[in-house]
């Protein structure tokens, strides 16, 4: 047969064609299988249902081992829109006991990108939160009828005591910003809000686990992947042992009812906060579960009572006479006064036309009696002498900077660093501040004399005042106050063990302690004395632009080897001796003796019943307020 070689060459065209096709396909396969990871991820989301296993959140105990905060199970109804198939909506609504309108609204809300920016067909969307155990049981039985829906177990908080809401904080759903900031969170997760829940969030939350289930194209679960070998068990959060004595805290909150203010009690040797009372306060149960949103709004919008404002650490008050011990220490440290230096007091400090009033006591007067009687004049003279001693400091401004430096070393003017969010730094002015206000060189000790007695520009939080008291009780050091005694199994950060030594020589503290002791034995805080405990104290009566004077007290007991240092601050309640002293001494007595002696019961009743406000209630809860009685007290503490 004749061979046509021209035509035979066409085999190369045909062969070349299929070689080209195969080459293109191999390149495409390389792109699909080797270059692009998208398909691997897609395949995994296709085939694996990664069910998050939520860890149990850490529990909280008080310093005596009383369980304060624990967990209760809650159930969320979650759905994956892609997997939802037509189902009996009426039956579904019935089971959850919601109306058809609620159902429709919820569905449209979920798909609304403004209300639910995380909406995705493929990821779990929370349809309804916090099912009651009853609804949960009913739904669980029928769940197979509603493909695409499942139940996600959650953990809610439960409280054994209706106290310490400001310390404990609460939990809430994370917001978009937190999800973005922290990889741990997914939409619908919970995080701590306020208090210890927030500051110890990373310890409390634990580690999430994951259960990998195999799911076929019809959304049916075909079992565990690799027999569960790839699953990760959740790790429970760390428990916290609070330094708070919950009974003392409760007692403090009762004493503060119908008053506005704060109590801070610290164990001086350790810096552990025994009680951190802020009034008005609220029932922590208000912020649990489905009612949280509504209640949080209510508390947040209550601008009159400001229950969410933790006055113990956030309010900056004029410290008033509680400031005088710091002045004594500075004057001694700077050598302005000796124990025998006397200053005159003629019902006040009179210097030219300037007059700072004082009450009746002997004159002239030395440091200890000045503390005993809370003499304004003494500390004004001392302050004036210090600022005017240009031979030592050069200018008034330089002298003032020295004064300020000492105060900062005692914990004033800056955040102390308590392990709670939102602490205020108080305020100690510097010379630049006055230069701005009056002009450089145009102010003197007389211009700003009121800071010497804790008035004027000086502001401090009750925590700072209590910390000063603890410093004095320790004769010259403090440990940063903290409300958590121990993260169980972890311990506590080093910074909460560290001793801070103010710039005042420890030798001078004893004089202050003696002065504060004299104030109790025969001075302004006589009512602070109880039993045979050597109580030391200092009253404070702070003038303020908001009305009646604030009543303040700081004290510690016993004088030697002190167990408790306390600051009480009651807004617009008058003299320090009227409210501050009795409340402070009752707190100390309760803590040290565990009970109030018979002879002081009248004082306790008086304090419990006293009201310094026109407010309807200072304890905000869903329950009707119970008038305080002895039986109530015991019942509450058994709770």
């Amino acid at each position, binding site marked *: 047969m004749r061979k046509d070689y021209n035509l035979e060459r066409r085999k190369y065209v045909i062969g070349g064609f299929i070689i080209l096709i195969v080459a293109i396909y*191999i390149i495409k396969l390389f792109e699909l299988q080797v270059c692009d990871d998208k*398909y691997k991820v897609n*395949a995994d989301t296709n085939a694996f249902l990664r069910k998050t296993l939520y860890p149990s959140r850490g529990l909280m105990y008080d310093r005596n081992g009383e369980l304060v905060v624990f967990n209760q199970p809650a159930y969320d109804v979650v759905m994956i829109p892609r997997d939802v198939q037509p189902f009996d909506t009426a039956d579904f609504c019935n089971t959850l006991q919601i109306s058809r309108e609620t159902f429709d609204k919820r569905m449209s809300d979920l798909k609304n990108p403004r209300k639910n920016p995380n909406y995705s067909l493929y990821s779990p969307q929370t349809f309804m939160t916090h099912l009651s155990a009853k609804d949960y049981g009913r739904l669980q039985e029928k769940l197979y009828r509603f493909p695409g829906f499942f139940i996600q177990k959650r953990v809610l908080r439960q409280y054994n005591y209706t106290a310490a809401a400001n310390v404990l904080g609460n939990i809430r759903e994370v917001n978009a910003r937190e999800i973005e900031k922290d990889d741990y969170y997914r939409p619908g997760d919970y995080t701590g809000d306020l208090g210890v829940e927030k500051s110890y969030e990373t310890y409390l939350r634990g580690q999430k686990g994951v259960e990998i289930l195999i799911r076929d*194209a019809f959304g049916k679960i075909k079992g565990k992947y690799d027999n569960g070998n790839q699953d990760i068990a959740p790790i429970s959060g760390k428990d916290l042992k609070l330094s708070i004595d919950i009974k003392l805290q409760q007692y403090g909150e009762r004493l503060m009812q119908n008053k506005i203010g704060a109590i801070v009690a610290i164990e001086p040797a350790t810096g552990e906060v025994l009680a951190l009372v802020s009034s008005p306060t609220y029932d922590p149960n208000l912020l649990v579960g489905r009612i949280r949103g509504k209640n949080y709004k209510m508390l947040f919008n209550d601008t009159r009572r400001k229950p969410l404002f933790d006055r113990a650490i956030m309010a900056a008050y004029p410290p008033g006479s509680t400031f005088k011990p710091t002045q004594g220490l500075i004057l001694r440290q700077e050598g302005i006064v000796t124990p025998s230096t006397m200053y005159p007091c003629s019902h006040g400090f009179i210097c030219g036309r300037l007059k700072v009033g004082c009450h009746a006591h002997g004159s002239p007067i030395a440091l200890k009696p000045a503390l005993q009687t809370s003499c304004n004049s003494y500390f004004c003279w001392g302050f004036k002498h210090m600022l005017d001693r240009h031979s030592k400091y050069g200018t008034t401004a330089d002298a003032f900077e020295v004064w300020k430096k000492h105060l900062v070393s005692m914990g004033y003017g800056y955040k102390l660093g308590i392990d709670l969010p939102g602490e205020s730094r108080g305020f100690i002015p510097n010379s630049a501040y006055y230069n701005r206000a009056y002009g450089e060189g145009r102010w003197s000790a007389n211009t700003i004399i009121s800071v010497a007695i804790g008035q004027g520009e000086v502001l401090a939080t009750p925590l700072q005042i209590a910390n000063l008291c603890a410093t004095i009780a320790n004769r010259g050091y403090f440990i940063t106050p903290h409300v958590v005694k121990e993260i169980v199994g972890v311990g506590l950060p080093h910074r909460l063990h560290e001793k801070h030594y103010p710039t005042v020589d420890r030798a001078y503290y004893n004089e202050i302690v003696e002065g504060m002791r004299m104030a109790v034995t025969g001075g302004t805080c006589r009512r602070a004395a109880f039993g045979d405990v050597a109580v030391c104290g200092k009253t404070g009566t702070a003038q303020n632009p908001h009305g009646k004077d604030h009543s303040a007290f700081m004290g510690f007991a016993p004088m030697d080897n002190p167990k408790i240092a306390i600051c009480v601050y009651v807004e617009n309640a008058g003299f320090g001796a009227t409210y501050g002293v009795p409340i402070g001494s009752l707190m100390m007595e309760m803590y040290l003796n565990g009970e109030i002696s018979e002879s002081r019961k009248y004082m306790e009743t008086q304090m419990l019943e006293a009201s310094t406000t026109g407010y309807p209630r200072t304890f905000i809860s869903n329950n009707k307020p119970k008038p305080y009685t002895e039986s109530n007290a015991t019942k509450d503490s058994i709770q």
Partner: protein
Amino acid sequence: MQLRTAYNSRDNSPLRYIDWFTVVLYAILVIGGVVSIYAASYQFDNAGIFEFSMFSGKQMMWIGISVVIGFCILLLDRRIYDAYAYPVYVAIILLLILTIFIAPNVKGSHSWIVMGPISIQPAEFGKFATALALAKLFSGYNFTLNKSYTNYLKAGLIIVLPIVLIILQRETGSALVYTSLIFVLYREGMSGFVLFAGFCSVLFFVIAIKYTEVLFWSIPLGEALVFIGIMLLVVGMLFIYCRSWELGRNTALGYIGGCAVAALLSYFGIDVNGTIFFVALISASVIYLLIAMFRENVRKAFVAIIFAAASMLFLFSVNYAFGKLESYQQLRIKVTLGIEDDIRGVGYNVNQSKIAIGSGGFLGKGLLNGTQTKLRYVPEQHTDFIFCTIGEEEGFVGSTIVLVLFLALILRIIHIAERQRTAFGRVYAYCVASYFIFHLAINIGMVIGLCPVIGIPLPFFSYGGSSILGFTILLALLLRIDASRRESVN
């Protein structure tokens, strides 16, 4: 005498000259196919690969039947196929006609003849019958394709008849397979321009449909690209095919000058209608070429003229034709071209199959470890989309090996075709090669998302008795014809 008998018997045995290379490739592909089918239909609570309840078990039975029939084919005399080519073709055509009427509706197609537990698809047997008939036609005394148009008509009839019948069975995919026989016609002398035209049509169609959204010079970008493509090809043809330096240069300069003028006009704010501009420019070049052709007798320029005119006509008919397609076909084409992203609807299969293949990675997840195919994310995974299982479980390496094996088989068949001493053998072999080229290109192309979803199986891999039997017969006949290639030249 003794010696001569021995020689004769050896010479007469078809197995003596069998192409073992093809046999080995066949065996590897078939075994790979069974394993893939087993993997594709494997469930977590699974029976063994040989269990009859499994697809792989049934497929083994069909392979057994195929091998027996294939062996019989090898044992029969080669001349039988020559003699019975037309009768076989006629019989199969009658069977295809019968099928239209007696086949039940299976997912919209009427292509299955059900006989108790077994159903067969006659369309699969149409392939070898058509190949035989075509081979017989070309082996006629002094037959060459280009001799007369009647010969084209005869060849065309043999090819078109099964296409029409299978389309009537609503099995468009299987019908399109026969269009691949254009390669055979090309090899036997059909002008290369037909192939070129076919290639250009597909290219222009794709470009014109794909880029309709973006505007370029007030016309869709796709249209503009096609116009530019036509101009480039015309110039290229003038240079390379006509070998006319002068015509090529002048046309090219004319195109560039025209475009420059248009760009200048639009720069000065005078709107130029893109369509009119391009049509005018190309028409001008056509007129120039016509004049040149008559004046200087450059006859080959005629091809470029026809090409330019036909291309423009084609472009205008594309939109019209596309509008005439059924909407689901339009959608399939659009999804394939990536115009529409419809992963829940038409694109679901392709998207899932891409996910399955893509998740295989370089080395794959290992046999039976695929999740996408095990969990039935890929539809038709043991039939048309069987390649997904290979892609997912054997990865890039496995997929490439399968592709290369097929390529080797096809090239081997072309090699076999060219060593035939008869037109009958050569044409038959090219028919087989064409079928394999089409099946491989379309099936793999659709699975990896490069072609529209046209439901045709991957030879030897896709589950289905008719398919494996049909392809085995095709190959067995080829081997038998090839084995006796030295016998006689008549």
